[in-house]
């Protein structure tokens, strides 16, 4: 296995790890969004969905472990690459014209990722932890998951952070989606323009999709608690 660690520690290898974990997260986000959409169909739909996941808990735990590994590797390598890349240019340019030769999303990947990371910690500490382990309000024990979500979506700063984070996620994905193909070596002039468009569409759907829930419940939900 020595060769494998040497390989994944090279510059190109680390990027491959970013791309493999990034694509896994891309797929996860689709599943996650589809599941969360049940929120719009009322408490029964959402509570039913979460309880259905409980039935296949062992499988879910395995997926969660893979997800954890993906996040840890993605964040770790993202941080290491960022550090190494800063070291590769110890003296900066006085005049920086990078806005004329590259997209801002491509240049801000680390910072966009950092915003996602802060959100991720909060997200796990609130929803994930309460759904799975301990909920001080006791709602989770009674399978009233819908109410937990709706309660958080009444807190203005939580909603604000949520929206900022998913916008950052959208920008991260706008660059990240096509970047995966380039990193894997799948840049073909016939298909790449289409891949870039699909990536933009995917990023918009994710940002708008995830933002729609806190926006709806904060501004428009009359409540049926």
């Amino acid at each position: 296995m020595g060769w494998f660690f040497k390989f994944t520690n090279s510059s190109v290898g680390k990027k491959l790890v970013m791309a493999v974990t990034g694509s896994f997260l891309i797929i996860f986000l689709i599943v996650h969004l589809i599941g969360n959409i049940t929120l719009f169909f009322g408490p029964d739909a959402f509570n039913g969905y979460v309880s259905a996941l409980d039935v296949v808990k062992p499988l879910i735990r395995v997926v969660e472990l893979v997800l954890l590994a993906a996040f840890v590797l993605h964040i770790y390598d993202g941080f290491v690459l960022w550090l190494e890349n800063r070291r590769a240019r110890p003296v900066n340019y006085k005049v920086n014209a990078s806005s004329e030769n590259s997209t801002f999303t491509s240049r801000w990947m680390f910072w966009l990722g950092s915003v996602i990371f802060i959100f991720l910690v909060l997200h796990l500490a609130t929803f994930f932890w309460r759904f799975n382990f301990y909920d001080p309000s006791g709602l989770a024990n009674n399978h009233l998951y819908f109410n937990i979500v709706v309660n958080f979506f009444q807190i203005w700063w939580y909603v604000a952070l949520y929206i900022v984070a998913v916008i950052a996620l959208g920008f991260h994905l706008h660059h990240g989606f096509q970047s995966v193909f380039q990193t894997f070596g799948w840049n073909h002039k016939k298909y790449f323009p289409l891949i870039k468009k699909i990536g933009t569409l995917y990023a918009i759907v994710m940002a708008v999709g995830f933002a729609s829930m806190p926006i709806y419940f904060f501004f428009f939900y009359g409540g049926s608690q």
Partner: protein
Amino acid sequence: MEEKNLKLKLKIWRQKNSKSVGSFVDYDVQVSPDASFLEMLDELNNSLEANGEEPIHFESDCREGICGTCGLVINGHPHGPLQKIATCQLHMRNFKDGETLWVEPFRAKAFPVIKDLMVDRSGFDKILEAGGYVSVNTGGAPDANLIPIPKDIASEAFDAAACIGCGACVAACKNASAMLFTSAKVSQYALLPQGQQERYRRVQKMIAVMDELGFGSCTNTYACEAECPKGISVTNIARMNRDFASAKFKSKEEVEV
């Protein structure tokens, strides 16, 4: 056909040697719009020398855009604001009267400043030494075109080979990455039958040396392609990523440098 000279303010990076700390020095110049950027620096140096001052050190050789020796960062752009030309092909008519121009050396840990605007790009030579060659048999000269190569493949290899090794990709990249240069060199051989023998060793060796020298990695911003005087395509980087991964997974030997 008397054309009006341009008045420009130059802010040029001056640095005594690799160990000293540099800074920008202001120069007011008047220059013909027909002069090239390097000719303007030549004139400025003449006047500096006439005053007994140290001339500004910069590199140039062919002055027709094919040797890759010149390279300055002008207002944040390697080889200046125009696309697909080297600094030597940049003419002053592209600037406006009264403009301020910041002139900096290529900045990268792997390209240390030697003096003023001159940087040490021997890292590129080390990457080439690691694998930028093909093995050929000695003996009678082979017939030309003995090995059939489709035109589109030959053209693609030639496009990669058009890299002049100037280092603008490193200068433009926010990570000071040498991926565009290295991938152009990997690709010009990987695409052709003659390059197949060393194909998978070459890519591993060249990337290992590239990493060792302290160049950054690729974030796929594609700034390199946008600033490259020869328009080298980032599809070469994709090809190198692909070859590197298959080499690592398939090879039975460890390739060390």
